[in-house]
């Protein structure tokens, strides 16, 4: 996933790792170089000591073992020497019966030499002259403990580096989170916007986010105003078209037309078609559609008013009730939702004998709306035709087909699904499934 936090974290950790490793290795190299220089001095002094131990004896030079330190006596002590003269060769007792691959160059041998018992030896060779004959004195010193301690230092350094990386990672996470908190709150607000719990974004944000928030708010206001303006214009158009239609409908009852039944019937049919068409198209034009929820639909606030209106319009003793989860906000535009529920419930009220029920339930990915009535219902084989756009089921009951037509329009604009079923109350159940737009995390 494309996360700012992750990107920043990876960058920081990679940089720290490279710098840390280079630093550790370089400091070890420098230290070792210094150490070898100092050991070279020690080894040279050692050769000088051995030179002193060579004393003239009966058969030329002799090694005075009294002058040798005990470390050259103990087997495999890690301190070895070899003295070559033209005629003689001395080896330290500590070498026992093994031999080394002694170097043939003077000075500190650049590489370590394998010694007995897996020892790694630092070897120094010096050339002298004693009593007129050339002498080569080589001294070897076990380097393994130093290698071991270097290994330890390296291990400790890596551990420290690891701990430092962890600490930096956590600190960076904290810093990024603090720095991005306004973004997080903007994200949460956009989620609320989509759920219809908020109409505008909060403008108290850092300077960097200000243009974004201002622009979004501006767009929201603009969309809202455009919707209001176009609804107002549609209202006016409806008024301008429907009032003359009402006059014409009234004229059908005039005495002049009563004498012309064929003409009257034709007029009535044509007027009916105009009325259907005008109502349908104007209702469709009013829809906000999928765009934005605006304030959303607050069930507890809107449903009582809707049911009071239904009760006033259908004044038979209908039992109307609704159920919704507490604090139920449907994330769709208020007027669209009222139009959907109003038409469905109105239709149910027209057919019901005594009872109409609305049930709203939350699903994992959205909402389920159910409108039940105890009317005659619709036979199974005709249910599909009703769900098709604008299908009219009963010409006799005015508004039935039209109401469900606009219902179909709204549901398809919201990409929902709907089904007609048999209701447990005995009549028709209209079940609608709407998936909520999930605000992507």
């Amino acid at each position, binding site marked *: 996933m494309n996360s700012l936090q992750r990107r920043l974290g990876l960058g920081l950790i990679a940089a720290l790792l490279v710098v840390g490793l280079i630093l550790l290795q370089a400091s070890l190299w420098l230290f070792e170089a210094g150490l070898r220089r100092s050991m070279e001095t020690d080894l040279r002094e050692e050769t000088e000591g051995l030179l002193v131990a060579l004393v003239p004896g009966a058969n030329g030079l002799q090694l005075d073992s009294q002058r040798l330190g005990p470390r050259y006596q103990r087997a495999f002590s890690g301190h070895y020497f070899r003295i070559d003269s033209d005629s003689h060769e001395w080896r330290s007792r500590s070498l026992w019966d093994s031999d080394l691959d002694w170097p043939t160059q003077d000075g500190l041998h650049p590489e370590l030499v394998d010694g007995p018992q897996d020892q790694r030896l630092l070897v120094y060779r010096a050339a002298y002259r004693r009593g007129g004959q050339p002498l080569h004195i080589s001294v070897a010193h076990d380097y393994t403990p130093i290698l071991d301690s270097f290994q330890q230092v390296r291990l400790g350094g890596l551990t420290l580096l690891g701990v430092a990386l962890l600490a930096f990672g956590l600190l960076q996470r904290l810093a990024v989170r603090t720095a991005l908190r306004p973004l997080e709150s903007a994200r949460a607000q956009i989620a609320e916007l989509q759920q219809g719990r908020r109409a505008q974004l909060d403008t108290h944000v850092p300077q960097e986010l200000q243009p974004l928030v201002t622009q979004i708010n501006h767009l929201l206001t603009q969309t809202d105003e455009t919707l209001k303006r176009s609804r107002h214009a549609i*209202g*006016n158009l*409806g*008024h*301008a*078209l*429907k*009032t*003359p*239609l*009402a*006059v*014409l*409908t*009234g*004229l059908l*009852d005039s005495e002049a037309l009563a004498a012309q039944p064929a003409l009257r019937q034709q007029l009535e049919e044509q*007027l009916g078609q105009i*009325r259907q068409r005008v*109502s349908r198209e104007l*209702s469709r034009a*009013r829809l906000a559609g999928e765009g934005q929820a605006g304030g959303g639909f607050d069930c507890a606030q*809107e449903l009582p*008013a*809707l049911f*009071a*209106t239904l009760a*006033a*319009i259908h*004044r*038979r*003793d209908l039992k109307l009730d609704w159920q919704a989860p507490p604090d139920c906000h449907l994330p769709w535009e*208020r*007027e669209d939702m*009222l*139009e959907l*529920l*109003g*038409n469905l419930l109105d239709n149910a009220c027209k057919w019901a004998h005594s009872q109409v029920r609305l049930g709203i339930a939350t699903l994992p990915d959205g909402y389920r709306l159910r409108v039940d009535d105890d009317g005659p219902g619709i036979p199974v084989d005709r249910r599909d035709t009703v769900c098709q756009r604008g299908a009219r089921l009963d010409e006799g009951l005015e508004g039935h087909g039209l109401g469900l037509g606009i219902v179909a329009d709204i549901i398809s604009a919201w990409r929902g699904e709907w089904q007609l079923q048999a209701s447990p109350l005995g009549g028709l159940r209209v079940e609608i499934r709407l998936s909520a737009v999930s605000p992507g995390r």
Partner: protein
Amino acid sequence: MRLLLVEDHVPLADQLLADLKRHGYAVDWLADGRDAEYQGASEPYDLVVLDLGLPGKPGLDVLRAWRARGLATPVLILTARDSWAERIDGLKAGADDYLTKPFHPEELLLRIQALLRRAHGLANQPLLATGGLELDEARQECRRDGQSIALTAGEFRLLRYFMLHPGQLLSKSQLAEHLYDGETERDSNVIEVLVNRLRGKLGREIIETRRGQGYRFGTRP
């Protein structure tokens, strides 16, 4: 029954006036919202038919102003604005019913009848029935024990008013106010004549005279 019709579209208003008068209603017509707000609150109307898109003052504001003053007259909103959000706004503003244009004149008459009955506590009756009488408002005739009794327009109007106010003491001026529109000359003698004609057709005891006070439509067992 005296109604106030507030509608700014003249052809529709003419048609409605003719229709309503033919069905025995006394109707006053206004086209401006400000006039309606004043007259609706000062004259004793039995019902108001109110358009929403009015010049002067929007219909919903007029309705809110009436309700804020405590005016309880039933109001039927007659409008082209047919979305559910607008219907709910209308009912919230204090309307008692909401009819959308275009409508059938028959539908409007039925709604007005039903609203008047409901306002007088007589809901859910197909016919207006009190005091052993049934009144068929569509045919403007009265029935008792299955027998039809023909009525003139004037008699029908008076009997309907009586039947909507059974057992109530109604003065002549009160009757005149509710049976005639604002432009008709009110002659209390006409009421007396009509009362006597109703007694002649329905029996003397149906309407009781309280001297100096008015009439009372009896509740015959």
